[in-house]
């Protein structure tokens, strides 16, 4: 294992060192450097400190563990691999991600999973252990998002305007989601056992990663949100 001390390095110097390094790297004293491990394929990176914006952008197979909080736009357009955040994640997590997995132990900011997409076997997944901010899954076009609402202390599991513009993929919110206002263009129902099987593996992985009680989590009802294909987005702006 290689240890890189990020103190005083700018993002370019730091990323050059990561690219030159071995496949198993621990980063210490990380503080706000952007684009860490962008596009990385074969790498296991452990980060101590606060990574900057666009952590793991275009990630292509690498595994990143952040032992604390992460900032904005984590996993922007990532294609493959996994990002595990042992804390909170900032705004626009998984922005336009098209493959791979993001696991967040605690809360997510605004616009998590904005414009996630999927194609054939590329199905991105994001599991958020705590609560999510407003505009969760905005313009979601594919992939799966799960929010578990653990240790929510009475906070709503998701903020305002979830699923705005959603036109593909699946969203699982733990609980009955009473008091959450969904747009007319999505279909909201209590998830069946066969629905849950779609996300079971990732919830299992989440529980293993963060040592959570899987039985308790899975025993609760889940709400499943999917686009309502009978009420498509047409003629919203112009009649064409």
């Amino acid at each position, binding site marked *: 294992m290689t240890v890189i001390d990020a103190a005083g390095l700018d993002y370019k110097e730091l990323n050059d060192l990561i690219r030159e390094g071995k496949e198993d790297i621990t980063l210490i004293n990380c503080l*706000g450097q952007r684009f860490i491990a962008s596009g990385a394929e074969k790498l296991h990176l452990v980060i101590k400190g*606060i990574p*900057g914006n666009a952590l793991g952008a275009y990630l292509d197979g690498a595994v990143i563990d952040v032992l604390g909080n992460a*900032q904005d736009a984590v996993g922007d357009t990532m294609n493959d691999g996994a990002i595990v955040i042992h804390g909170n994640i900032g705004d626009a997590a998984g922005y336009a991600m098209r493959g791979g997995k993001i696991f967040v132990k605690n809360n997510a900011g*605004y616009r998590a999973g904005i414009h996630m997409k999927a194609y054939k076997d590329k199905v991105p997944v994001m599991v958020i252990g705590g609560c999510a*901010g*407003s*505009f969760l899954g905005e313009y979601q076009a594919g992939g799966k998002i799960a929010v578990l609402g653990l240790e929510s202390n009475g906070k709503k599991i998701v903020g305002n305007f979830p699923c705005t513009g959603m036109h593909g993929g699946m969203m699982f919110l733990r609980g009955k989601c009473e008091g959450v*206002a969904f747009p007319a263009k999505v279909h909201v129902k209590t998830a069946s056992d066969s629905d849950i099987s779609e996300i079971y593996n990732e919830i299992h992985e989440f529980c293993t990663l963060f040592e959570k009680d899987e039985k308790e989590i899975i025993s609760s009802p889940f709400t499943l949100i999917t686009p309502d294909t009978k009420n498509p987005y047409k003629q919203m702006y112009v009649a064409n």
Partner: protein
Amino acid sequence: MEKEGQVRIPSGCAIAALISREGKRIPGNIISEAMKPMHDRSNGLGGGFAAYGIYPEYKDFYALHMFFDERATRKNCEQFLKERFEIVKSEIIPTRKIAAITDEPIIWRYFVAPLKSVLLSLQLDEKEFVARTVMKINTEMEGAYVFSSGKNMGTFKAVGFPEDVGVFYKLEEYLGYSWTSHGRYPTNTPGWWGGAHPFTLLDYSVVHNGEISSYDANRRFIEMFGYKCTLKTDTEVITYIMDYLLRVQHLTLSETASVIAAPFWSTIEGKDEQEREKLSFLRTVFPSLLITGPFSIVLGFDGGLMALNDRLKLRSMVVGEKDDMVYIASEEAAIRVMEPDVQNIYAPAGGEPVIVKVKE
């Protein structure tokens, strides 16, 4: 080159703030250092700081911080000031020569009190008189610009990266109970010393990351009340809106937040009756002061700070605490520079004001 206010180029930015609820006085280098991990949010065309509690020995006087293009302008302006104010002290603001900061104007400060006779004849209260005088200098006196006009506070700004601006103004020599800072990435204007943040009027200062789309609607409304937006930058209009709602209309801070970052009608409908009535009232009375488009701002005022995001939260902002200190920044990394062991880190929701006041 065309100056600020003459051209609009179609802002990314960095903001940070700290405050001691106990009123402990903190040197300015702490916040200046915090801007370093956010370096790439700025482009070197503006950096600045606002500091509160820095002039206790002159706390009863308005501290006018001014830029002048040349000596003659300063002499003229001093004559103008003497006719309106008692000037108890005037001096150059001390700076350091550093390679990163060039082309500095003449930078001067005056501690002043309005002449009682002038106030009586104009029938104006002191603050209104000072505000009008600042507007007059900034719009009518070519080459002179007041960039700070509050009591026991001051702003320090320049063209450059914020961490360099902190060194340039020797901020380690000032002790304030609260500080705000800004790194600028101008996208609408070319970048000029006066156009750097914070923007101020009296003891209000605003640092802003964003690009508001309601600028002209807001400007047309606020200019009806004697404010003059001269710089075509959106932060200037936010500063005047704050002054108008807080000082002139006597709204509370949270009411002011509900005007400029008013919730959607659909969100208002879901509130309890009392809250619904209040929010509807504010949206109805001040529709032209709703600020749309992305912003995260920190408002500094005598005795406190308010941080606020636009209602859609199109810019990032993080808050953390440690003992009596509260820290605010565009990025958590900046907060960790100020306090590595910061606690209760959280991101306020869009339109949710974070108000921190120093204990009386």
